């Protein structure tokens, strides 16, 4: 998956969980900008895992590790 595909995947899953269309960029922080809360964030990650087949580690703090920053998430998915 390239960076553009990863960004579109994240955007589509965030929109699905937030139940509204969203504009995100690599600079967006999903939690800080209150696009999703920490619980909905778990659903976003699960949706991304199911669609991509890529496992996001369960034994890390996603907030502390910066996984709700779209740039970090896209980098992880496209690496």
């Amino acid at each position, binding site marked *: 998956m390239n960076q553009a595909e990863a960004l579109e995947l994240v955007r589509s899953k965030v929109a699905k969980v937030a139940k509204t269309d969203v504009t995100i960029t690599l600079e967006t922080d999903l939690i800080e900008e209150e696009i999703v*809360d*920490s*619980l909905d964030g*778990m*659903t976003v*990650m*699960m949706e991304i895992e199911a669609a991509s087949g890529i496992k996001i580690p*369960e*034994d890390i703090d*996603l907030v502390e590790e910066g996984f709700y920053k779209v740039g970090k998430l896209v980098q992880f998915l496209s690496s």
Partner: protein
Amino acid sequence: MHVRAIASAFPDWVVDNDTIASWSGLDARFIADKIGIDSRRFLAANEPPSSLAARACNSLFSAQPELARESVGLMVVVTQNGDYKLPHMGAILQNELRLAKTTATFDVGLGCSGYVYGLSVAKGLMASTGIAQAILVTCDPYSRLMRRDSRDVIGLFGDAATATWLSADRGLSIGLPDFGTDGSGAAHLIVRGGGGAHPASGIGIAGEGEQASQSLSMGGRAVFNFMLREVPESVARCLARNHLDKDDIDLFVFHQASKFMIDTLTERMALPRDKVVFDIARTGNTVSSSIPLILERLVADAPPRQKILVSGFGVGLSWATNILQYGAPA
């Protein structure tokens, strides 16, 4: 074997969301809206867990005069938080409740799956020994395990105890269960300190000087993923074992983990929302007590032949599912 009646007890100390927010920095509105909790009860510092369990049992005896104390042949206590490391809470309760010395008592060390496990444990022992009357107790005060500033857990759990009268003759029959364990997820819901691996301080053996946390740690996303992975499959296996279809079930009573988790599970399993019971607004997630607290109302109100699916999941990680039904052979 049958579920004949259920009684419950709560501590007096009411902890509202503003208090939780002041301790932890959690948002009170978030707890109410997303977790589904307005308030919960915590045991007072001077109140031992067994006193809460005894109150639930005494409430059961008061409400059910047909249940004589001397007739209770078995008491199974589901808890991970007894008064002491040893002896087991069942022994404390036998004495406190003045049950006969011939009463078999033991504890089952499970969390949120424990009530559903306990139903089958008691059923099996009753069937194999001829015991006609048993009490299944749940009492697991997680307030004793939670750091007040732990944002992962402090807004979630509350304390309660329940006592379920199990009888050989009538009530809700206990069907064929589905059980499961995935110990690879053990670390996702854990209290590391105080056990044999990391004993309490002062013991003077390996581990001294490196104190493991004696408070509850939860990997929320791992537990969430575990629930969505295992519970639908457990429900499907349990339905098949009992020769039932999802549409045959009148009510689904899952462990009352949180509003977010039950809403998500309901959506993923495509269950009718009016068949899925959820109510923790004034209790919080009460661990192994959450299912019997819901059943307490249903047992009193349920029309004949109603089929209730119960499914618990949590610490272990573990899960258990069963069907309770009026008018079916036990």
